[in-house]
């Protein structure tokens, strides 16, 4: 019972912000090292210098952009959890769309709609991957003998402890 005793929500924003920053910083380093290498003047030494300069100047910016996205996303997600009193994939899809819209608010309504759509679809795809993974991981809990019913939980009428759906189903 301990693993869900702690509320993840307000702390998760900081968590996501940091995670997104490191993801952006690492990805940005790789991207900008290649880009800096290609854009530098000829000569291996100069190219390496150029690559290093590009990483130094650009990768933190990419990380920061990612962190803004992640933090805002998580904040909206948590707000939605608080308002709706429910946690389901809709929260993250909505907050992805809202994040996209908010971050392009200075570019006008059309840009907001476009990036809201992109954010929503992207998050829906991520959710879909998550759903797929849970489905495939849930596959192994199917009854071994499909003709045999799994036992009913014993809380129905009498009640001993029923610990964990997956482990306690003995299929006779």
């Amino acid at each position, binding site marked *: *019972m301990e*693993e*869900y005793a702690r509320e*993840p*929500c307000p*702390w*998760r924003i900081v*968590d*996501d912000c940091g*995670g997104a920053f490191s993801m952006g910083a690492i990805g940005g380093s790789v991207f900008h090292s290649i880009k800096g290498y290609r854009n530098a003047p000829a000569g291996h030494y100069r190219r390496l210098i150029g690559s290093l300069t590009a990483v130094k100047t650009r990768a933190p910016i990419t990380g920061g952009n990612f962190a803004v996205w992640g933090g805002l996303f998580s904040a909206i997600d948590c707000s939605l*959890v608080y308002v709706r*009193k*429910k*946690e*389901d*994939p*809709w*929260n*993250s*899809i909505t907050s992805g769309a809202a994040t996209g819209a908010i971050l392009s608010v200075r570019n006008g309504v059309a840009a907001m709609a476009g990036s809201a759509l992109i954010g929503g679809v992207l998050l*829906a*795809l991520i*959710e*879909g991957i*998550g*759903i*797929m993974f*849970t489905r495939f991981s*849930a596959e192994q*809990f*199917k*009854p071994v003998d*499909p*003709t*045999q*019913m*799994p036992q*009913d*939980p014993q*809380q*129905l009428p009498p*009640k001993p402890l*029923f610990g964990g*759906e*997956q482990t306690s189903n003995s299929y006779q």
Partner: protein
Amino acid sequence: MISIRICARNQNKFQNFSQLFFNTCPSKDTKLCKNDIVRRFLHRNALNQKLKEDSGRHNTQIAEQKDKPFSELSLGQKVARTGKDASYLTVIVIGVSITGAMFYMIGRELFSRESPNGVYSTALKDCTNDVRIEAALGKPIKGYGETTRRGRRRFTSHSEYEVEGVKHIRMKFYIEGPHNKGTVHLEKVKDPNNKYQYRYMFVDLDNSNRSIIIEDNRQMLDNLLKQV
């Protein structure tokens, strides 16, 4: 399709290139039209080159036509071209079908009432509307699934299975109010009308040994399914 490769040192050549592609020709004879465009393009390039040479800077550029029209190819080339096109087409078809399948899966998960997410939604609603649960947990009741490592709790643990061709789904999720928490266990069964019915649903309260049984239709449903 005509594709033209340019090796141009100066930027403004690309303007010509884009003009070439987006130029719409009023003539209906496409072949003529294409040739016309190409000729115009080459002519303009030649002019540019002349200008460049006049100004003293050497500039090399090549405009060449790749990909002959299909009718002019030999048999072997035709086979090769068809194979290439077919392989590209398969890549496109595979990509589109994977995307479509993913969107279908997501849509079914989100909008259907018989998907795990739909079952979770209706069950949560039924729980929060139950008077006994409201009394035990307090008023604003929230629901969530299993906690992942990243602090997400939106996936409920569930298993779908079939017994003698009848679909069952078992699910477990958590509800929480100001006074107490609880774990909801439920099982749904497709009745003869192919609709999911609760076989049972009960809530285990955390701080007491009590469990609140919301639905228990096992007797009724099992008899119903036996008759069919």
